[in-house]
């Protein structure tokens, strides 16, 4: 894996409905923790964007542009929000991912390096270079 990445990293928070079984006190606690976490990362310049996503939406697929309702993937894998991190290494992105206040409640954090260019185009370029050798 490429550990240096000047394009940053994306955290995708996966998990749906993990909130519902929590007591009101736990809900308040995890919400406060999450907001404080994002505020600190923003102030440190490590988070450049982030939002929760509404638990609704559509999926568009196929040549016929079929529009279907969520849930998306399996609901426990559904994406509930994201942070975009401006940090130089996967190690640093991982340290931040491990701080996620949702982890004790079953949230999974997917950590993905942002790509410099569309992978389709880079693959195509590689093939074209190979073909000319």
């Amino acid at each position, binding site marked *: 894996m490429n550990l240096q990445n000047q394009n940053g990293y994306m955290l995708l928070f996966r998990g749906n409905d993990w909130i*519902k079984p929590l007591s009101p006190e736990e809900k308040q606690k995890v919400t406060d923790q999450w907001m404080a976490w994002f505020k600190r990362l923003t102030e440190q310049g490590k988070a450049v964007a982030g939002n929760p996503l509404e638990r609704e*939406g559509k999926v*568009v697929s196929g040549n016929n542009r079929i*529009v279907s309702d969520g849930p998306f993937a399996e609901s426990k894998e559904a*994406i509930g929000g994201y942070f975009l991190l401006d940090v130089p290494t996967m190690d640093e992105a991982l340290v931040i991912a491990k701080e996620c206040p949702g982890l004790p409640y079953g949230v999974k954090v997917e950590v993905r390096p942002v790509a410099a260019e569309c992978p389709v185009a880079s693959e195509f370029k590689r093939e074209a270079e190979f073909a000319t050798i």
Partner: protein
Amino acid sequence: MNALEMSNNGYLLLFHGNEWWKELGREELEQYIPQSNGWLENLMTTGKVKGGQALARSGVIVSGKNGCNVTDGPFAESKEVVGGYLLLNVETFEEAVAIAKTCPQLAFGGKVEVRPLTNECPSQVHLEELTREEQLATA
């Protein structure tokens, strides 16, 4: 393309599908790539896009208390993996879906998830709902 800026509103398109382009031949790629570039360029020049990036096909999943489990991908089911995103600067969900329908990846098996952004943490919203219900029950 630039990364996302802080966003108060709008819609997020998530592009699903794992390395579907590997199935394409030269002719299809030569057709798809300019289509895709033109699509993005058009959305950017009309001010419909605030940001967007492709995601590398690598990464890890962190789970468990204090992030004790770190595993390599694949993520979700590999055909549901997110390969990139666009943040749309449009007013309505209908317009976001209309843009998703014009995505050139659809012709090659890609899927586009359209999600409204929110400012409010859903756990906070749920807590407020519960509080309102309790107040109604005791009223």
